[in-house]
């Protein structure tokens, strides 16, 4: 039984006079105790909305609809009332955000913000709480922690603030930590420090981690299982090595071909994905990636591609996946493999506006 089981989660934002936004469209994934699970995808694919929905932190706006389930240790987080949700949040499940300044209170000293968490969830008070807070700051690598406790968030650098936030998040030894692009705003040497810190925390405390990022390098280095999102859907799930070695979804293949690698030589052109995420089908059914996909066939646009399960927990949503390197393609896909992007019901991939 997984620690967190997200099942068919969907989030829609409706606004009068505007098209309804399906920010998250039937997302399912699971996180085992102590596991590091990645959610990767480009801007707007629904990573943050997914995590906010699980945490119950979506802005209460009219037109917001959340469906599906997010079962954490037997309780559906989506069904909780505010009170019990607050209890779970911080104690069992904690979250860190890209911008630590927006989640630290600017007018309260760091120390008070950490001890408050300790008091609320662990009942610690006074000198004991102070000591524990200083220990926590020390543990996340903040120098001279006793002094830092009295300081305000704006007196710390971005990297130190992110550490302070991590200290607060792990203060109660949560069983699940959700990190939404925790290093995107930081320089690469500071990113390395923070990622190392997160890895260490996970290793030492057995906390499960959901790592949200757009950086394939980050997931390659730390995730056990990776979910690739496109346009609000999980299009591929795989363990770390299989995903990078033999990606099965054309979008994953495309992403991997798009990123320049530090360890590759100068010269070769990259293989970008044509078009942009703003290219959408005129109708909601069918594969959302179809307007940009070079392997598209007629079946792709009729109905949403079914999830194909293979061995070892792998799954992908594609009716015409690229063959696994080294194996002959099965006869069915062989026959169906078309010339990419000719005629058909969908316009050719192009980077064009569809306002």
């Amino acid at each position, binding site marked *: 039984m997984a620690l967190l089981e997200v099942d068919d989660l969907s989030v829609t934002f409706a606004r009068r006079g505007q098209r309804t936004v399906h920010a998250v469209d039937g997302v399912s994934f699971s996180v085992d105790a102590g596991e590091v699970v990645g959610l990767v995808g*480009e801007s707007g694919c629904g990573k943050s909305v997914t995590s906010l929905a699980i945490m119950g932190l979506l802005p209460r706006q009219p037109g917001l609809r959340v469906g599906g389930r997010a079962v954490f240790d037997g309780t559906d987080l989506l069904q909780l009332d505010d009170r019990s949700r607050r209890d779970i949040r911080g104690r069992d499940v904690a979250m860190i955000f890209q911008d630590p300044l927006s*989640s*630290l209170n*600017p*007018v309260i000293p760091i120390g008070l913000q950490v001890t408050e968490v300790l008091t609320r969830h662990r009942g610690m008070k006074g000198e004991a709480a102070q000591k524990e807070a200083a220990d926590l700051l020390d543990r996340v690598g903040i120098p001279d922690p006793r002094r830092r406790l009295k300081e305000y968030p704006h007196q710390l*650098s971005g990297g*130190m603030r992110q550490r302070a936030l991590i200290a607060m998040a792990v203060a109660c030894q949560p069983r699940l930590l959700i990190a939404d692009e925790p290093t995107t705003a930081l320089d690469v040497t500071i*990113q390395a420090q923070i990622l190392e810190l997160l890895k260490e925390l996970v290793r030492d405390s057995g906390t499960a981690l959901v790592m949200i990022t757009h950086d394939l*390098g980050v997931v*390659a280095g730390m995730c056990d299982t990776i979910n690739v999102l496109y346009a609000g859907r999980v299009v591929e799930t795989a363990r770390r090595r299989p995903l990078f070695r033999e990606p099965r979804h054309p979008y994953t293949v495309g992403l991997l071909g798009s990123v320049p690698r530090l360890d590759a030589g100068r010269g070769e052109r990259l293989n970008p994905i044509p078009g942009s995420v703003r290219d959408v089908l005129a109708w909601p059914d069918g594969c959302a990636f179809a307007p940009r996909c070079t392997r598209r066939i007629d079946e792709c646009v009729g109905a949403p591609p079914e999830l194909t399960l293979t061995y070892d927990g792998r799954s992908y949503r594609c009716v015409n996946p690229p063959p696994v390197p080294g194996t002959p393609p099965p006869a069915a896909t062989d026959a169906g493999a078309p010339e990419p992007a000719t005629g058909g019901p969908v316009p050719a991939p192009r980077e064009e506006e569809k306002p």
Partner: protein
Amino acid sequence: MTESDILVEVRDLKVHFPIKRGLILDRVVGHVKAVDGVDLSIPRGKTYGLVGESGCGKSTLGRALLQLTPPTGGEVRFDGVELTTLAAGKLRTMRRRMQMIFQDPMSSLDPRQNVESILTEGLQTHGIGTDRDDRRRIIGETLDAVGLPRWALSRYPHEFSGGQRQRIGIARALVLGPELIVADEPVSALDVSIQAQVVNLLDELQDNLGLTYLVIAHDLAVVKHISDVVGVMYLGALVEEAPSDRLYSEPLHPYTRALMSAVPVPDPDVEDRRERILLAGDLPSPANPPSGCRFHTRCPWAQPTRCADERPALREIGGSRVACHFAERIATGELRPHKVSAQIVRPEGEGEDPAVVSAPTEPGSYV
């Protein structure tokens, strides 16, 4: 390499910004040494990449090179012409030959101008094209070159996606027929899949038009991919300059080593095998840089002699240029890294009382 193969030559370039205090900001209390003595040259038709962490002075160097920010000292020679002492009129004619593209295409494009008028403006300013038809032809060719359709001409910037806007930004630079393009973070605002399109476009344009690039970015993988030579900056100065392949395979400066080891590679096998050199603490403030070698407060190889009080000059070592007193002995493994304890670095404006800020509205965001 002969003189004429070098398009841009920068000597001891300095840009110092005064730090002003007082009620009417009339007191200069110090200087931010954003660029503090940089030497570099860019061969014609090649790409020079500039990397380094936020605030190390990359953008300032790029702007000073184009004379968009007046340098405090030093020389910039473009195709043999010294720019820092050039009269304003002459500089303007030179400007046509050196163009800049920016990180955020949206903020650098006037939202009220359609694409045609954005592109025509530059042509008119520089008196390019004999008549309207001629300008139309030039613009048409430019659109083809950057892969934008003709119907784009009548549209406005907001009607385009991020990648297309960057193409417009590139077209605006390209339409003037420049020889040098300074690209400041040209892809960092773009999605991964779109980044690759723009990177390929820049590569193609260079092949077809023989352009010379100075590419500034904090993404090392991108810079390494498109550059022939890469310069690594730390606190206003170059610490290493090397052919881009060598930078990853044989980094010589301790900072370059740390930087290279910190960049995640999208390959689990590589990630698992790699040795990370984790730097302690934050980047020191350029207003108050450390003495001696500016990296000595974070350098795992720092030595008790020289490092803290003698600023290392860039020296040639086996085809690279390196600013480290001990580079050779670090390369042979004779000197071993040691643990460095983190030092606290204050963000700008430190010591002031917390301003009254409205608390964030996101419920429960205080974890």
